[in-house]
């Protein structure tokens, strides 16, 4: 079963991830998040002070982890429809849960590349001081952030697949990451409804945890944040999987996704 999952993960990653070629990978996974970190870090420093710059750097690093990963996962699902392979998935005997999760799995390690690029930009280019950070806790937050981002993107991927539009869903999700998670705008400044929406967004809780971990808090102190992030991830994966099954049933009933 594990081998089957491995084959599906590797093959779907190679087959369906549009940015898996050197020019696109470097531009999207490495350069773009680094540019965001540099731009917002410099803006914070220029407009206010070093603390604001650090807050923006941490926020945009989290954003970089979730954003590119989401793009890859959404592509994995929409490309099944674009390429006409969906009928062969739905007529197969394979486990639907395995099929669904395998389309996101290898994008989690890809997010580590974006994370490394963001942190290198922050320290080497901007000279940010990440001195007191508890790195075990920081990395635990990013790992959880990547997992919840993947689950959220699997959900969004279903929508993108059903309306046959990568751009609409991807850029919509990116706006949510920017506005709702506290990456740039402190959540305390958001209107009530948006603050509430931020509670159920991936990244939000792990980002809060990571801010504490950068100040030196250990795993024990941020366990609550990681736990909440895990709950959000679980919620999205359950909803996403249910959507995937609904799409399959809808397809069998209507034939709507044949083209």
């Amino acid at each position, binding site marked *: 079963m594990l*081998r*089957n999952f491995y*084959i599906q993960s590797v*093959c779907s990653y190679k087959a369906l991830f549009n940015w898996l070629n050197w020019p696109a990978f470097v531009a999207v996974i490495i350069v773009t998040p680094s540019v965001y970190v540099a731009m917002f870090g410099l803006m914070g420093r220029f407009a206010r002070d070093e603390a604001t710059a650090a807050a923006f750097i941490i926020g945009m690093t989290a954003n970089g982890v979730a954003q590119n990963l989401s793009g890859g996962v959404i592509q994995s699902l929409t490309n099944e429809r674009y*390429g006409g392979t969906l009928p062969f998935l739905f007529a*197969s*005997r394979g486990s639907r849960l395995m099929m669904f999760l395998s389309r996101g799995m290898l994008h989690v390690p890809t997010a580590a590349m974006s994370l490394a690029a963001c942190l290198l930009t922050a320290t080497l280019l901007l000279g940010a001081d990440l001195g007191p950070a508890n790195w075990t806790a920081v990395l635990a937050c990013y790992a959880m952030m990547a997992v919840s981002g993947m689950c959220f993107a699997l959900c969004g991927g279903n929508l993108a697949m059903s309306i046959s539009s990568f751009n609409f869903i991807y850029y919509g999700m990116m706006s949510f990451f920017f506005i709702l998670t506290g990456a740039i705008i402190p959540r305390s400044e958001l209107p009530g409804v948006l603050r509430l929406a931020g509670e159920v967004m991936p990244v939000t809780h792990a980002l809060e945890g990571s801010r504490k971990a950068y100040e030196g808090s250990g795993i024990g102190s941020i366990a609550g944040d990681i736990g909440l992030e895990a709950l959000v991830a679980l919620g999205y994966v359950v909803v996403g999987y249910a959507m995937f099954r609904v799409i399959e049933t809808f*397809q069998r009933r*209507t034939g709507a996704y044949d083209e």
Partner: protein
Amino acid sequence: MDEAILCENLQRTFTQRSLMGGKRETVALRGLNLSVPRGSVFGLLGPNGAGKTTTVRILSTLLTPTGGRACVQGFDVMKQTSQVRRSIGFVLGGDRGLYGRLTGKENLEYFAALNHVEPRLAKRRADELLEKVGLFERRDTLVEQYSRGMKQRLHIARGLLTDPEVVFMDEPTIGLDPQVAQEVRSIIPQLAAQGKTVLLTTHYMFEADVLCERLALIDHGEIVASGSPSEIKQRVSQIRVIELQLRESPAGLVDSITALPGVVGASALPDGMLTRLTVQVRPNADVRDAVLALIAEEQLESVLEREPTLEEAYLSILG
């Protein structure tokens, strides 16, 4: 149970709803009845939109019927989908449906994993099938670099990965050059020789004539004729065909021949340097001399009388 495939009063209506609340219904199948014996090659023929692909999609569990019943190997396609999926393989025509950024071999190994084929067996089977469809030498080439014919052959290999008892082939030779189409066609009798049941949909009459033991002509979602190719041809045996090859075809000749008593129809088509004139006549009508009287002797290259072809039978039945 002698039938591999059974459809009883199979119906499918597609409904499109607009945002304004409007509803448009398209009836694709209106009570289709079909019985395909085990181990046979069965052809489903019909014009575009007749319901061939809808039938294949229902039988391969991709689409649910809106009425009636369909069984494959005795399993109901609605209630026993996993048993049906275990017994079938399907080949859809066209460029899509494969992963272009994987190699041919990776595609097969991936679909084998998806269908629970044990990994070692999957590797062996992938190699055997790539050899069988003539792609073994190109097994490590990305599919996006394959020609259309190579993709079609890979589609066939994928359809046979699980060693299915029933294979659905939906226009497998469409758009292929004659040599590749011939190679693809040569695989079908091999499958039948292994005891597999093949349901083939095609537009090509000669293909159906050569490959299929039995045929059904489908039009507007209904079977309008079925039987062996020779039985279907006999259904239009009230027509005889006179075929003439002419060095040149005078203007108005077709109209003059059509106007002769006993002639059902006539058509003239270029045939290399010559023109082939096909005249369909009623069996008791003696019009040969009357037709020849309209053609100058120096214009005539050859003349023969023959039984109608499957294509002529098809056109006669489906109008």
